[in-house]
């Protein structure tokens, strides 16, 4: 920053709450909010890993924390927001692609189908391996 303070009062457009005036921007901000929860979720996993490394008791404490209303509430919101991120991610995909020789909606449907298929695969695999 300059040592010389400008005496001119430049108008700076206020930024607070601009996105609340239009449903499109509200949805945009909800999607951006998914990043906060995704980051926190990664930290929850990292904390679990650290507890696992520390001692079996610490790991049990981490699991105990996961079974609290606060944690369950956090994960329900995180699930909804990240699912919304997932939907928007695949919706944006055809818009960033060059002219497609097929219906761009196929990319959206394909992405969502891949997500659903992989999710089911992980659930079944986990159930089968640990049973």
């Amino acid at each position, binding site marked *: 920053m300059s040592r010389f303070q400008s005496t001119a009062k430049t108008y700076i457009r*206020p*930024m*607070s709450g601009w*996105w609340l005036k239009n449903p499109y921007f509200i949805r945009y*901000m909800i999607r*951006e909010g*998914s*990043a*906060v929860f*995704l*980051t926190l*979720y*990664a*930290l*929850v*996993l*990292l904390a*679990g*890993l*650290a507890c*696992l*490394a520390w001692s*079996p008791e610490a*790991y*049990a404490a981490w*699991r105990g924390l*996961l*079974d609290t209303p606060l*944690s*369950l509430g*956090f*994960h*329900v919101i*995180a*699930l909804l927001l*990240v*699912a919304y*991120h*997932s939907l928007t*991610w*695949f919706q944006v995909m055809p818009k960033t692609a060059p002219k497609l020789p097929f219906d761009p909606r196929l990319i959206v449907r394909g*992405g969502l189908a*891949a*997500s659903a298929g*992989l*999710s089911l695969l*992980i*659930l079944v695999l*986990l*159930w089968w391996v*640990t049973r």
Partner: protein
Amino acid sequence: MKGSNEPVFWSLFGAGGVLSALIGPVLILITGIAVPLGFLLPEDTLSHANVLAFVQHPLGKLALLTVIALFLFHGCHRMLHSLHDLGFRTGTRAAFGFYGFATLGTVMTALLLLIW
């Protein structure tokens, strides 16, 4: 002239975006809701023995490091750019903070996984 570092961070953001779009919801459902409540999956799915076996396997390590690192880089990149949308003047210092945080989390995960 030194090139921009944006492509590197955008690639990590993009990779994290794809990974979290594909399996983010199911991972949150499994570790945060289903297993703690014992619904869909039994509660001992994430027992000490099971998770220990997972992190001892090279593929388990790779999966966990990939998920944590890419989720962190995706989340931090998006938060950095959202701050700008909210009217904060983000500069090099903010970028350093957010990407540094994601890098730190990644390094910590990698070091922890080396224990087993």
